[in-house]
C-alpha cells in the first residue's frame, strides 16, 4: 500500500516537472517563464523525493531523500526570487500585455514594459 502511494507521488512529480519545463519553453517573457518553471519544478522534485522516501522507508536512502526535500524546498524559491529581483533591476523587459508594474513605479524609474 505504501509502495503504491509512493509510486503515485513519483509519477505526479514527473508530470509536474515535465509541465514546468514545457512552460519554460512556451511562456512569453522572463517573469512568466520563471514562475511557471520554478514553482512546478519545486513541487515535482519534492514529490519525487517524498515518493522515494515512502518506498524506501527509514533506511539510508529514505532519510537522504527527506533531507533532499528540505534542501530543494528552501533553495529553489529563494534563488528564483533573488534572480527575478535582480533581473528587474537589470532592466529585462516585461511582456507587452502586462497591466501594471508596481516595483518600477515605486522606485520612480521609467516603465520597462515592452512596447506594442
Amino acid at each position, binding site marked *: 500500500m505504501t509502495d503504491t502511494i509512493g509510486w503515485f507521488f513519483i509519477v505526479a512529480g514527473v508530470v509536474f516537472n*515535465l509541465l514546468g519545463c514545457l512552460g519554460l519553453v512556451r511562456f512569453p517573457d*522572463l517573469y512568466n517563464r*520563471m514562475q511557471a*518553471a520554478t514553482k512546478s519544478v519545486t513541487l515535482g522534485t519534492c514529490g519525487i*523525493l517524498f515518493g522515494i522516501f515512502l518506498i524506501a522507508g527509514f533506511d539510508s536512502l529514505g532519510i537522504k531523500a527527506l533531507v*533532499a526535500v528540505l534542501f*530543494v524546498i528552501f*533553495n529553489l524559491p529563494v*534563488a528564483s526570487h533573488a534572480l527575478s529581483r*535582480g533581473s528587474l533591476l537589470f532592466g529585462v523587459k516585461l511582456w507587452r500585455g502586462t497591466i501594471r508594474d508596481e516595483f518600477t513605479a515605486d522606485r520612480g524609474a521609467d516603465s520597462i514594459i515592452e512596447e506594442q
Partner: protein
Amino acid sequence: MTILIVLLVLGAFFCLYRVLRGPSIPDRVIAVDVMAVIFSSITALMGLRLRLAYLLDLSIALAIISFVATLALAKYLSGRSLDD
C-alpha cells in the same frame, strides 16, 4: 521506471532549448538552474532503481551548487558586489 527517467530527460532538453535560445542572461541562468534540479531528481530516481544511497548525496550536492550559482548571478545582475 525507465519511462519516467526518459520523460525527465525530455524536460531537460526543453530547458536546453531555452538555454540556447533565451533572449536575455537571466533566461539562461534560470534554465540552467531548473536543469540542475531536473538532473538532481533523475539522480534520485536512479538511486532508487539501483538501491544506491550515495546517489542521493549527489542529488543534494547538485541542488546546493545550483542554488549558490544562481544567487551569485542574481547579485551580479542587481549591480552589487558579492559581500554587500
